[in-house]
């Protein structure tokens, strides 16, 4: 089944994405297909990290990709890179879904089942993605335990900072500052510039 699995290009090494999105904004469907090829893997990846359930994740990821097409004319390059814009949108939509009430109940039982279904996790991983994972993992280790737990609970589980505070039995103010301090460390370690 290996050849049936689409492996996208590495979006971080894709200087053309901005230009492609600009063409998408002018209604170019071929340019959109290229954008899709570049971002579908990370979009589904982040949505799935938050939602766990593959079927729901595919549904949300598709909606996100269609929204990229629809709103491309409103994308503002001066507000951040194209890939950041798309992945921020994907995370936002995944979090919206997690917080919608009916999804919350279904998620936990389904997620437990899916976590024991190995095929999707064991299909080939692209090399860039593994390198990316290595670097992100290494940088996450530079955070204090509380910073790392706060950031990952918020980002990968879609919890609000209030829920994070509850989960870690910490005061609200502490969680706010841990999230910010954690992101500062992560930003500096990853060498991110906006």
């Amino acid at each position, binding site marked *: 089944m290996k050849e049936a699995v*689409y492996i996208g290009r590495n979006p971080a090494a894709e200087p053309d994405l901005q230009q492609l999105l600009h063409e998408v904004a002018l209604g170019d469907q071929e340019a959109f297909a290229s954008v899709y090829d570049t971002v579908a893997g990370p979009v*589904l990846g982040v949505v799935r990290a938050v939602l766990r359930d593959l079927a729901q994740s595919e549904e949300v990821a598709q909606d996100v990709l*269609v929204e990229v097409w629809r709103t491309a004319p409103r994308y503002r*390059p001066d507000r951040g*890179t194209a890939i950041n814009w798309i992945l921020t949108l994907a*995370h936002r939509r995944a979090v919206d879904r997690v917080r919608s009430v009916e999804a919350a109940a279904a998620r936990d039982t389904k997620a437990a089942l899916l976590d024991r279904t190995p095929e999707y996790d064991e299909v080939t991983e692209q090399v860039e993605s593994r390198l990316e994972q290595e670097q*992100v993992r290494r940088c996450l280790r530079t955070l204090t335990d509380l910073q790392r737990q706060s950031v990952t609970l918020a980002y990968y589980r879609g919890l609000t900072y209030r829920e994070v505070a509850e989960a870690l039995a910490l005061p609200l103010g502490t969680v*706010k500052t841990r999230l910010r301090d954690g992101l500062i460390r992560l930003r500096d370690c990853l060498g*991110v510039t906006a």
Partner: protein
Amino acid sequence: MTDPHTLTGAYALHALPDDERAGFERHLAGCPSCAREVEEFEAAAARLALASTVPVRPAMREEVLHRVGSVRQLTPGTTPVERVRRSKALGAAPARWALAACVAAAAVFGGTAVWQYDRAQDAQQRAARAERQASDLAGVLAAPDAKSRTVRVAGGTGTVVVSAQRDRAVFVSSKMPEPPKGKVYQLWFDDGGTMRDAGLMDPARASQSVLLKGPVDGASGVGVTVEPAGGSAKPTSAPVTVLSMPS
């Protein structure tokens, strides 16, 4: 209430409850350093997303591309334009009341109030003009017969979009370098070698869409020159680029 600055992290991770998010966004609008930090945090969070990249079912590609075929894109109009439109739809009556109040006051306060009335009317006309331009611009970009051509311009790109039916053109720049201090980019219609003024670009923005002044009127191309602030009646320098009209 804690210092809203500390909410940048929670905001960038979408970890603010809805009610607090709205409040923080209001703060963000007036806090450039917060906006900058949020942007950087979003970039860091995007790396967390990239690290989660997974393979995608090939069939999903066809499904998404198929859906996109029937989804209308938004017009490039910016949010302020939308706000103007909304205020026109919902707020036209109060605006008229305000003007009527000015007129009434004019009877009492004489000259000053009349001057204020003129200013108010002037502002309203300016707003109406800006709105008309924005909708003309969007109209050209969304016209069914719109055609475009893109060229590299000094490290960035320039795209000219023309609608023959509307006889108007839009110039879209992306990442063009800033013009030298005290200079602006000026746009021209090329009427078979004679350059006709088509307006100025905003020197502060590297990426922008500009509705060219006046009709295309059979122009063979669009040129861009660097001119002293305020623009020139005729080009005073060699063009940075000349694009022939897309056909």
